[in-house]
Structures are given as structure tokens and as C-alpha cells.
């Protein structure tokens, strides 16, 4: 992975394996998020509570109303954010460096955060002091964090 700021955006260089990993994660993420269109309650999967937090933890009625008014739009925009990454990956060949416009890169950031939120749930990372498990999934989690960190650096 190599990230460099450019005048109009960010230059992103990923290995073929990193690209495949990201593509697969995003496809699964889209599936997870889209399930939300049919199912308003989050009891099923605690990862969803991280993607769609309760806006009123001490007011059930207001929380439900907030969900009703915001969920579909959030699902749509979250899917659109991840779609920007997928589209950039699809539009370039495996060994090609990707030049992402600033505006596009801004939309990469929340999608990368969401991937990390779901992985954190799977890895049992619930508070700052929880260690990142030393396994492949933990490595993916850290890699996504490095990618996001470098993108923020390049954009700031």
C-alpha cells in the first residue's frame, strides 16, 4: 500500500491481494447494510448497532422515530460510499495505481470506518483497552486503519 497526495486528489497504490481483499469486504458490507432496508430492529447482529447507533439511548420512542426517518437514507449513503471504492477498484486493472479525486476520497473514509466497525465487533474490540487479536482478521483490521490514516493524512 502506498498513498500520496496529488494536486487534485490522492494517488493510491494497492497490491492485487489488497485490492481483492477490499473488494470482497465491500461486497459483504453492502449485503450486511442492505439487509437493513427490510429489518428495522438491530437485535440480530450487534455489528449493525455500531453502523446505526441508537440516537436516543434513553428514549425508545424517539429512537424508533429517528430510525424510521433516517435509516433508509443512511443505508443508501453508506452503500454509495462503499460503491465509490468498489467503482475505483473496478475501473482500474490489478497492477494500476488509482488516482482518486479529493471528493471521492472523502467518501472512502466513512466506508473504511464502517468496515472497521464491523470487524471490531467480530474481533471483540469493545473498548480502547481491548487488544487487537493477533490473527488474520486482526491484521485486516489494522491494515484498514493504516489505509484510512494515510488517506486522512493525504487529504488534510
Amino acid at each position: 500500500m502506498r498513498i500520496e497526495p496529488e494536486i487534485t486528489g490522492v494517488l493510491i497504490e494497492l497490491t492485487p491481494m489488497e485490492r481483492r481483499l477490499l473488494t470482497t469486504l465491500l461486497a459483504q458490507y453492502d449485503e450486511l447494510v442492505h439487509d437493513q432496508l427490510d429489518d428495522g430492529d438491530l437485535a440480530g447482529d450487534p455489528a449493525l448497532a455500531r453502523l446505526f447507533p441508537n440516537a436516543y439511548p434513553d428514549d425508545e420512542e424517539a429512537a424508533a422515530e429517528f430510525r424510521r426517518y433516517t435509516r433508509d437514507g443512511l443505508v443508501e449513503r453508506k452503500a454509495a460510499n462503499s460503491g465509490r471504492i468498489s467503482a475505483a477498484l473496478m475501473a482500474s486493472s490489478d497492477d494500476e495505481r488509482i488516482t482518486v479525486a479529493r471528493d471521492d476520497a472523502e467518501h472512502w473514509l466513512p466506508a473504511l470506518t464502517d468496515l472497521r466497525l464491523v470487524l471490531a465487533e467480530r474481533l471483540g474490540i469493545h473498548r480502547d483497552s481491548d487488544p487487537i487479536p493477533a490473527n488474520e482478521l486482526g491484521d485486516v483490521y489494522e491494515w484498514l486503519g493504516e489505509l484510512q490514516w494515510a488517506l486522512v493524512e493525504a487529504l488534510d
Partner: protein
Amino acid sequence: MVVVAQLVERWLVVPDVAGSSPVIHPMDVASSPVLSSTDLERDTTTDSRVAPDVPWQTIVWNDPVNLMSYVTHVFRSYFGYSKAEAERLMLQVHNDGRSVVATGPREEMERHTEAMHEYGLWATVDRAS
């Protein structure tokens, strides 16, 4: 690639890692003491007689996932805060567990909260104290 395929497969199906220990949502951990005080406050203020112009707040809570630089970046690009102010709020989230990032009418605070959720930050709406 085999390795990648395996770990990706574990992603959607909740792996044993999470199941082996009791699942504690960050909401339960970080907010319990705050929740009780908020409850007390709400008992006296969620009253129809309260003036409609009582301000509301958007609160961002600490989470173990989001990078400090990203949170600062979000506060700068979404709210238009200066770098110094965005960093102050980010550090408040990090050190105190939460920060009031905006105050104003309820609908506006809900819009901000929705935006924070899009950014993947843990945000809630509450009455200003």
C-alpha cells in the same frame, strides 16, 4: 488468496472470537453512569410545558475503532470547525468519553447526528443541560 478467502468468510458469520466472551456493546459500557444522570434530568425536562426553544445537543461518544485523525477530520470537514477546535473536541471525546459537538434546535441536532452516523461515529441527541 486462500487465507484471504477464509478470513473473509468468517466475517459475515459471527466468528467464535466474539462468541467466546459475553458480547458487550460499547453503548452498555461507556454510557451507564451517564445514562442514569441523563435519566434524572430527562424526568424533569421531558415535559410539554418546557419552552420549545430549550436547546438540544449532538453528542459524540468515544469508541475504540475510530482514529483520532479521522474524528478530527470529520469535525473539520462537516462542522467547518478550525483545526484547533476540532482537535479540542476530538480530545474531549477521547479523554472524557464524550463531547457536545453542536447545540441548537432539535431537528438540526438530529441532522448532525444522522451525519455523524454516516461518518461512522457514535452520536446521540439529548437536551442541553
